[in-house]
């Protein structure tokens, strides 16, 4: 049994495992959770992981993730797995997936990009050049975003 199981199991909810070490709090931000909601939340940080060396885990009672939240988590924790728990059992396990093109989730930082114009019905589109470390390029203007830019955008926090 791995050490993480010292944290008690949850009855209904979501366990997000294999988060890059140090990014658990960013994941909570993406889920819009601050702790003041009264939900049971367990955060485990910097535990040993075969795949990542070190990893974080987040367990949230009574919450199921929306699709856009899953897409956002993929961008800051590309190896994450999402386990849906019902009645203390994992009933579904999905690995997040970084798509080749990311549409609409992020903003382009170039003020002279067509996607920065307020009146145009255009969604941002970033091509993924590299997943680790994350490197994205705007399909319209060629400006690149790195991991730090993406964390700042998705969580409002500095990386």
């Amino acid at each position: 049994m791995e050490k993480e199981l010292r944290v008690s199991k949850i009855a209904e909810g979501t366990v997000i495992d294999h988060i890059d070490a140090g990014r658990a709090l960013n994941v909570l931000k993406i889920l819009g959770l601050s702790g003041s909601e009264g939900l049971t939340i367990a955060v485990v940080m910097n535990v040993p992981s075969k795949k990542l060396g070190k990893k974080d885990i987040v367990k949230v009672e009574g919450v199921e993730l929306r699709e856009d939240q899953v897409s956002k988590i993929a961008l800051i924790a590309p190896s994450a797995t999402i386990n849906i728990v019902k009645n203390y059992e994992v009933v579904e396990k999905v690995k997040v997936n970084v798509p080749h093109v990311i549409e609409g989730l992020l903003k382009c930082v170039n003020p002279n990009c067509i996607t920065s114009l307020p009146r145009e019905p255009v969604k941002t589109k970033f091509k993924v050049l590299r997943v680790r470390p994350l490197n994205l390029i705007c399909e319209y203007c060629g400006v690149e975003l790195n991991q730090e830019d993406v964390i700042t955008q998705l969580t409002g926090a500095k990386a």
Partner: protein
Amino acid sequence: MFLNRDVISIIDFNPQELERLFDEADLMLRALEEGKHLKALEGYVMATAFFEPSTRTKMSFQTAMIRLGGSYIDLPPEEASSRAKGENLADTVRMLDSYADVIVIRHRVEGAARFAAEVATHPVINGGDGTRDHPTQAMIDLYTVRRLHGMINGLVYGVIGDLRYGRAARSFILGLSLFKPKKIYLISPPQLSCKREVIDFLNAKGVKYEEVYSLSEVVSELDVLYVTRIQRERFPDPLEFEKVKGSYKVSFDSLKNSKEKLSVLHPLPRVDELAYDLDNTAHARYFEQAKLGVPVRMALLKLVLKG
């Protein structure tokens, strides 16, 4: 290979496609020289929408269309500027799309042409977007090299001026990297050197290049020198501009160690980066280059509209 295709960036094309375009341009040029009246695009309408002022590019597209028996409609400049402030681009493009068979657009915003192409059902040709792409200028420049030197591969190129914000220089460099140049010298002050994405592209294509600060150290090696303007506005400190501008001015004197067959190109209009004392030398090829604008755009319009 061209029919109904959008023309957004020079790197959307491969060398075979460009050579096909240039073969077609040869035919157009011959027809023009022989004074033939062509009718290939009779009944077709092109819309020009230039949200940024332009004379050469716009008139050369319009001439190309007329020379092929087609016609054009133009979004009036004052309309373009008021639309740039008010109505959105998407609605303007939809309107033009309902009138015309092909739309040529220039806009100060990067990605505007790509977006217009997504909105329009008809093909969109990018006449320049922000500091990014100017694919038809690159086509003309590459075609000029092919006519002057018989080939694009195997030559040593120098590109001098604003390589960072100048879309003509950028597009020419990207266009060259589709071929097999012997070497490209990127000559600019450090503030105006190529953007990283362009350098990444050169590396990915395995093109030999070198970034240098002065023309004099490489001029003797060059077969082609492509000159572009350095704009004062790019320098936050006007003194910095005064310091560098002299070193990037190309004159008869700065070419005294060059090869006899060096061709000097410039997308025009020029300000003072290209001295008038070059005009009567054998190096000056920019007027011929400018003349090739119409046949290349004729070839492109014909291929895009009729294949």
